[in-house]
């Protein structure tokens, strides 16, 4: 791989990685895992993998927008848990599942908007602002659930509620449809609308964007709202799949989402990256998790491997920034 890329004109490896690298890495990984354990390619395993990926992918789509602005959102996991708990409680109170899901997603958006306001108008650094709200939302989840899972017959015997996370349509898990739907929407939003263009401008040079008429504060609030909303969508899937809302659901999910974005070639400095890359990044993490499980690698080692993969991606990102 190196020889082919290095010999062509000015193709630096970092440059190459940002364009096609994630896809190549995914393919290499799939080939590798398949050779080591043939059951990886079992359609059932692949469908299961996609369902596992859907939650992280949804969060990562929102994270992509946030990171493109040069920001970060550490509160996504807590938003997932809190909005999931709300929805579960609503369902137990007899609210129709569909309405409960909608309310859960909207509350996720509202929590995200709060992050946005802190960052846009409070001028708080995104890292610190969302670190604080991560703790606050998590604490609120514990308070709301009193530290116990929210579950009951109205959830476990509720077809509509369970279908969201557990159902199959034409043999494919329903969450996969949700992931694909939101991928298409996020792709269009980022690459085909003025909202996306302004996101890139904001990340590339916020001052120049402002002078060119971008309303920076408004954009930031919408972007964090979007991140919160998508985290909540992921929260709906998780709550439905488990048929319960766990107070510690989504802990450390921000890490996998950030990793997916970075593995997908998006620069943490903002302004550069593609939605497709983030989808691939989420799949890489999914294949990595699934493959290592199939290979019987201990979860302790799994963490080390995942860390190394992320590190390599970040170093490539640095190399690219310098070039």
């Amino acid at each position, binding site marked *: 791989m190196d020889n082919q890329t290095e010999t062509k004109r000015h193709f630096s490896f970092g440059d190459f990685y940002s364009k096609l690298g994630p896809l190549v890495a995914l393919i290499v990984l799939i080939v590798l895992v398949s050779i080591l354990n043939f059951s990886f390619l079992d359609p059932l395993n692949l469908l299961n993998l996609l369902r596992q990926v859907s939650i992280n992918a949804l969060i990562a789509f929102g994270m992509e927008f946030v990171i493109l602005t040069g920001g970060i959102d550490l509160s996504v996991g807590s938003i997932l848990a809190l909005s999931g708990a709300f929805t579960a409680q609503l369902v137990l109170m007899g609210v129709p599942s569909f309405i409960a899901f909608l309310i859960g997603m909207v509350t996720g958006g509202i929590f995200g908007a709060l992050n946005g306001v802190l960052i846009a108008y409070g001028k708080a650094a995104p890292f610190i602002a969302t670190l604080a709200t991560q703790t606050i939302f998590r604490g609120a989840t514990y308070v709301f659930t009193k530290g116990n899972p929210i579950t009951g017959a109205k959830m476990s015997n509720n077809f509509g509620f369970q279908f969201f996370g557990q159902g199959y349509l034409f043999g494919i898990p329903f969450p996969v449809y949700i992931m694909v739907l939101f991928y298409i929407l996020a792709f*269009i939003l980022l690459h*085909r*609308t*003025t909202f996306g*263009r*302004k996101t*890139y*401008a904001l990340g*590339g*040079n916020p*001052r*120049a*964007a*402002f*002078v*060119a*008429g*971008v*309303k920076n504060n408004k954009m930031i609030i919408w972007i964090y709202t979007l991140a919160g909303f998508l985290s909540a969508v992921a929260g709906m899937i998780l709550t439905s799949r488990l048929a319960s809302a766990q107070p510690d659901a989504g802990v450390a999910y921000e890490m996998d989402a950030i990793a997916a974005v970075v593995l997908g070639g998006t620069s943490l400095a903002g*302004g*550069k990256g593609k939605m497709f890359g983030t989808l691939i990044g989420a799949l890489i993490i999914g294949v990595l998790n699934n493959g290592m499980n199939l290979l019987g690698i201990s979860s302790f080692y799994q963490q080390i491997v995942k860390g190394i993969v992320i590190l390599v991606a970040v170093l490539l990102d640095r190399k690219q920034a310098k070039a």
Partner: protein
Amino acid sequence: MEIDMQHISKAFGPNVVLKDVNFSVKGGEVHALMGENGAGKSTMMNILTGLLEPNGGSIKVDGKETHFASALEAEQHGISFIHQEMNNFGEMPILDNMFLNKEIKTRFGFIDNVKMKAIAQESLAKLDVKLDLNQPIGNLSVGQQQMIEIAKSLMTDAKIIIMDEPTAALTENEIGKLFDVIKSLKAQGVGIIYISHRMEELFEISDRVTVMRDGLTINTYNTKETNVKQIVHDMVGRDMGDFYPDRHPKFGKVMLETNKLTREGVFKDISFSVRSGEILAFSGLMGAGRTEVMRAIFGIDKLDSGTITVNGKQVKISNPSDAIKDNIGFLTEDRKSEGLILDDSIADNIDLPSIEGFVKHGMIDRKADRDFVNLLMKRLTVKANSAEDEAGSLSGGNQQKVVLAKWVGSGSQVLILDEPTRGVDVGAKREIYDLMNELTDRGTAIIMVSSDLDEVLGFSDNIAVLYEGKLMGVVPTATATQESVMTLATGGEN
């Protein structure tokens, strides 16, 4: 002490800054150094204090050829430089800032705060400044920080003190104190090199005055034997070539009118108007508030009071987005930090203010957008391989054309150009002037902020002159001279 600098020359690469400059100062005198921005005053002082190495010439201290290898060495020889731009650490206490790198230590090697404080306070007392020295220096106003800077130099046993625009940030009261101190320093035999743009100060405080222009000493006078007119003439008196295209303006209706625009402490009661087809130049010295007025009109900074009328309609502009909707465009002074997104493509830079106009069914119509970009690139002769090239890969002149294309494309009827030809090579400069002519022929009103007096006089229809945040007057370019503009720009009567 007596310093004599003879035939000093200095070049940065091919750029000759000092050609042949003579300057001297002796103990007990105040010698003022005058000249426009870029005349070479600061370079001269940096050479004297060892910050820069001269290419030629000699520096004699008390008749002996001397050469300081560093600012510290110059200071140890009794030459102190009070810089215009202060290099303070805002979070650090005043005292620590005053003794940075010069801390006094006790015999056990600890910092001797008691002694340091006593010395600092003695020096500040001379300036009548009473402050709690333990507070962060960032709490102080710029003027107060300037006083601290002066006190710092009084703490050293300076024989020669260089003051670079010391009064720029001071109040009348503080200036009075400073002048008292200067007089008492003079009496003690200290020599002072005084750099200032303010004519009245020069005549109040200096004994001699030297005027520099374009890296040359033009004249040295005894202050008593000269006058403002003479000095202004020396400062600006150069010939203008026919570098600028002719202007044949046809003025239409008033496109932009401001009424008593005020931003507290920055500018006050700025009222002017610019008509369709007109180039109104804004002239003034650095810090006069030209850029600040434009930023406020465009909604980047907030106005405290005043109204803006565009095309006969009073408008409320609270951010650049509003200004763009009112068909105002703004090419900022700092291209790299505010004009362009360097990592983005040329196309993405050009269409950014106009992007909402290309939305079809909620999405960007890529073809229409790219056609628009290509047309603008052709019209402004942006030289690039493709519209997808990164803006940062272009030369300065081409980058400037991209920013211009952005605002031409957004349909600006009022175009504010802040230093449109700064850092642009001669060829591209001419192209920018031609474009400005073309735009005004089509009825655009242009406001051109420029520090280049040649440009202001050579390529505008009217000239507005600012001095310390006040509009001193608007004069027709046809009757303006370098002297008349410079007199207004330095606060003199016309």
